[in-house]
């Protein structure tokens, strides 16, 4: 299947008081139509920024897209006009955000907020939009939609708000749904519901989904393919099964090891990754993960490893083979 979205060497920087932050460093990956890509990483690794870049919603100033191309349906999104981009946003690519409390406008009705994308992109009238909104609310599992479209966000619960957010993103039936940590701010039971909802909607509507999270458990449930990001770089990319059964990058390994598991024998300390995540401003020679890596060798401190194919569909950016503990022969 042809990828519907391809990022090529995208670089994004932010000018801050403390210095220039390298948020995204030459990142490349693609998303296949109808499939789900999971992006995993700690806060600050660049996963959200790369998605905002796709939507060209990076605030400038202080952010700047300094390099790269993003291909969507044959066009480089970074090269088209803002007007064209506005047409694509909402109608062909939809986005759901992390915090349902602040992502909805408190002074507009839910009906208006879900309906306006349809009115703008599909030329619907107020009545048509309302009718379709009621359908959408049903689809995302919000009861009594006729009443709900007249209500305001503060009258919804957290989980319902996020469902409304999803309905809003899907209103024009986009080809891609980008979900930026949509369940992080919700409690676990609601989280499960939203994940289920997304899986069902994807089957029904056939769209591609990009799901960003730092929660490996959620990614395992949803994704077909996963990329792992660290310090603005992609460090591992693989099919979901391959990643979880055969993690090949030290960072991925540490992430998986630090997950508490049901079958752990109690009494063992949880493994953490020593040190702290990079601030994005400090530029160190070599691999950004090297100081915290338990497999690092001398080469790691001198040169930053590129992202390479190591197996049939599995890419990593590392000099070392984690199974043997020695440097990989190329």
């Amino acid at each position, binding site marked *: 299947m042809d990828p519907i979205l391809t990022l090529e060497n995208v670089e994004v920087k932010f000018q801050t*008081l403390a210095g220039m932050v390298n948020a995204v460093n030459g990142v490349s990956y693609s998303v296949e139509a109808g499939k789900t890509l999971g992006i995993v990483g700690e806060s600050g690794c660049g996963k959200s920024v790369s998605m905002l870049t796709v939507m060209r919603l990076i605030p400038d*100033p*202080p952010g700047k897209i300094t390099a790269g191309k993003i291909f969507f349906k044959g066009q480089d999104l970074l090269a088209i006009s803002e007007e064209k981009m506005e047409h694509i946003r909402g109608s062909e690519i939809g986005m759901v955000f992390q915090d349902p409390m602040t992502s909805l406008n408190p002074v507009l009705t839910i009906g208006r907020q879900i309906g306006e994308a349809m009115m703008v992109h599909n030329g619907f009238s107020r009545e048509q939009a309302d009718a379709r909104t009621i359908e959408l609310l049903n689809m995302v599992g919000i009861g009594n939609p006729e009443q709900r479209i007249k209500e305001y966000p503060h009258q919804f619960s957290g989980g319902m708000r996020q469902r409304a957010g999803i309905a809003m993103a899907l209103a024009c039936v986009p080809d891609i749904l980008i979900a930026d940590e949509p369940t992080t701010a919700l409690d676990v039971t609601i989280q499960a519901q939203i994940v289920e909802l997304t899986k069902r909607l994807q089957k029904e509507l056939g769209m591609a989904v990009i799901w960003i999270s730092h929660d490996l458990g959620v990614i395992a449930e949803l994704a077909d393919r996963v990329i792992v990001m660290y310090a603005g770089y992609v460090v591992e990319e693989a099919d979901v099964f391959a990643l979880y059964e055969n993690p090949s990058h030290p960072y991925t390994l540490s992430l998986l090891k630090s997950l508490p598991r049901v079958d752990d024998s109690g009494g063992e300390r949880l493994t953490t990754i*020593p040190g*702290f995540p990079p601030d994005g*401003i*400090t530029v160190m020679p070599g691999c950004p993960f090297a*100081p915290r890596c338990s497999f690092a060798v001398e080469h790691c401190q001198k040169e930053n490893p590129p992202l390479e194919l190591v197996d049939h569909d599995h890419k990593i950016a590392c000099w070392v083979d984690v199974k043997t503990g020695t440097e990989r022969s190329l």
Partner: protein
Amino acid sequence: MIGTAESEVIKIQEEFKTEALTPGQLMRMRFRRHKMAVFGLVMLVVLILYSFGGSLFFTEADANFTNTKERLSAPSAAHPFGTDTIGRDILIRTIYGGQISLLIGLAAVVVEVFLGVLIGAIAGYYGGWIDGLLMRFTEAMFNIPQLFLLLVMAKFFGRSVPDINLFGRQFSGSVVVIIVIIGLTSWMYLARIVRANFLSLKEREFVLAAHTTGTSNSSIIFQHILPNSIAPIIVSGTLSVANAILAEAYISFLGLGVKPPTATWGNMLEGAYNYVETAPWLWIFPGLLIVLTVLSINFVGDGLRDAVDPHALIDAG
């Protein structure tokens, strides 16, 4: 590295880190980048030098020297700012008037800060009915427009203090009255800020800790909580100086403020509207000085406010 302890890892990472800025450095950096604030500061220094340094060149007697033959004369070499309705040199009067106007502004704020902090701290710290009562009182005062209150109080108490001799200057006792009443009518805004600050700070752990070690209430208020509220007090206090100067100017302009012959920038404008056509220099010069002073203070206050604001972290290049 294999087997490296966490502390070692952190040490290695820290080596490469860029120097983090201390909050003080950050503040000063932000203030300096606020070009208007720096300009305001410079302007203020110039004005202060003008008012206080200018007295080295002219005596107070010069300021009050009347010469009716030269009344209402336009700016000239002899009188660069012209003369007023009874022949006094306006330039010299603006110098001495500036001293009073600035003095009143500063002193009134001292009164205001004292009252505001006291009331706000007590209300915020003790809470309960004390808070309720003080806040009702504050709100009531807030609702009476300041200018009207000032005018009434100035009218009726203006003569209650005799003339004063201070720092070699002789000025009308109404100056003291004005200072007090401006302070008495301006503290409410600050009281609210301080109270809000205290309400939130008193729940913090360091206060709890102080309680458990038996520190007295007044000690907690003044030595523990208050230092943490300094920033908004400073910002508000700075901007209040501008308001105080304006307040004095307003009531002096209306003839109920500082009594002549003691000059203030405000009372030099008294009745000037009768001479708009014939003698604009009567009000242009003192008026401009007021505007410049208030403007500079506003710039500086704005800069201070940005400097202490923890939210402003991202530079916009």
